[in-house]
């Protein structure tokens, strides 16, 4: 195969052994999302303590790209403050796995890559609105999530 690689060692490895895979019982935030066209379907669980992501897990079914990106995303945000997570951008996630090219080369597969990020942004949007009464941040997050892909 030539061109921009998708199936790197790292992606295959994460898809075989995803990080932070599982459920958090009674999680503070639980968000489900799916890509209707390809059948990726995940649940993201978050616990928030002291305005930080104290724990995060995900489970569900998805392709290698979806599994790898969900794994890396959970690794990247664990322990981060909500303020940092609010500003977290898709390029940070994609570059971590060398998948920036997907934005241009594969409008279909970019959805697999960003599904968990979409779930994250939607998930904390409701937290900002309901628990922190930060309507402006919530509005921005919601808009960002809706326009992610």
């Amino acid at each position, binding site marked *: 195969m030539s061109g921009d690689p998708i199936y790197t060692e790292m992606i295959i490895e994460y898809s075989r052994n995803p990080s932070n895979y599982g459920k958090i019982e009674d999680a503070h935030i639980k968000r489900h999302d799916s890509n209707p066209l390809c059948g990726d379907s995940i649940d993201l669980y978050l616990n928030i303590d002291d305005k930080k992501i104290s724990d995060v897990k995900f489970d569900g079914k998805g392709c290698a790209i979806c599994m790898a990106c969900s794994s890396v995303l959970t690794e990247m945000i664990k322990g981060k403050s909500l303020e940092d997570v609010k500003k977290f951008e898709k390029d940070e996630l994609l570059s971590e796995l060398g998948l920036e090219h997907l934005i241009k080369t594969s409008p279909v597969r970019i959805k*697999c890559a960003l599904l968990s990020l979409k779930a994250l942004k939607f998930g904390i949007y409701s937290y900002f609105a309901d628990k922190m009464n930060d309507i402006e941040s919530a509005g921005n997050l919601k808009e960002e999530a809706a326009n992610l892909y």
Partner: protein
Amino acid sequence: MIKIQANTYSLEEIRSHFPVLNRRVRDDKRLVYLDNAATTQKPNQVIDAITDYYQNHNSNIHRAVHALAEESTEAFEATRDKIAKFLNIQNREEIIFVRGTTEAINLVAYSWGRDNVQKGDIVVTTEYEHHSNIVPWQVLTQETGAELKYINIDDNGELMLEQLDEYLATGKVKLVAISHVSNVLGTITDIHNVIKKCKNVGVKVLVDGAQAVPHMKVDIDNLDCDFYAFSAHKMLGPTGVGILWARKDILENMKPFQGGGDMIREVHKYETTWNDLPYKFEAGTPNVADVICFAAAIDYLAKIGMDNVRNHEIELTKYALEKMSKVKGLTIYGPKDPQKASGVISFNFNDVHPHDVATIIDKNGVAIRSGHHCAQVLMEKLNVAATNRASFYIYTTKEEVDTLIDSLEQVAKVFKL
């Protein structure tokens, strides 16, 4: 493979009629198009017919008296006659042009369903339906308070028809909406048996023939169902043309689906009388160009002969199933007997997600479908998120099947299987 007969085409000739099959894709790989259950490619005969129509005849139909309007109207209606002949339909006015199979089924659900299905009634469908033959019935039954029941499938991907007997025995069933051929498993429904069971107790049957008419001889008169729906684009024709066939006596008693031009006889300020069949159900300017060039697709298939189309697919499916059953880690869903299925093979490769399989073999030029195939109810039944689906047609070769199977090695390599 298709037998070379004096009055038909050889496989090589057939392939030469489809310009897109010469395409090179991705890294200059020869296109191996195995997504025919989604849509088929179009031969020059159909492409030329579209060009000819727009270059020489383009006009609206059924009203104006000028030369082009007459030519277009005549050609449009000629397609209706051609369909009648192709499917052995006795009354041409029972053939209604719509946008596709989905619209045909929705037309029945709205126009017939809302007047004939009430609270307490049952509508029966099956686990292997396309969403287009599930969702309209969900909407209808939820709206009316009727109940939606499913005929389940067994481990071979065949319907458990004894469940139909149980449903029919309640005396509450108003309609059975069922696929002639499953779009995911390729299973051919024992449709004569289903229709006979329903006729015996006066229950109406709608057949989704989207995956049947392109692949085998279908005789509507002999089938004796009540509604039959299919699409042109899955049988060499253009997109945007679907056909609903329904019995005249049923259509006459149905209210129109949409109001507008062409479906009226007289319009007054507060009342309208409907046009005759089939126009009562064809409101607005139809897809004139594509209906007209659909005739070229029917001519093409008629020239090959539907028995030859079917035999070609049986041989390819047999070949593919034999070879695929030897591939380690390959799970095939649906009937393993090519006589019981059309040229559709759904599979999973080890635990690799179908989207990853499809992306990797696409680099080799192989086009298959991966996903839930608009059949999530079936995916739940099979307990998978998605499958890969390779589907064949008249131009598919054994070499292309080989390329598909060889490409799976690439997947194994990438995923270190």
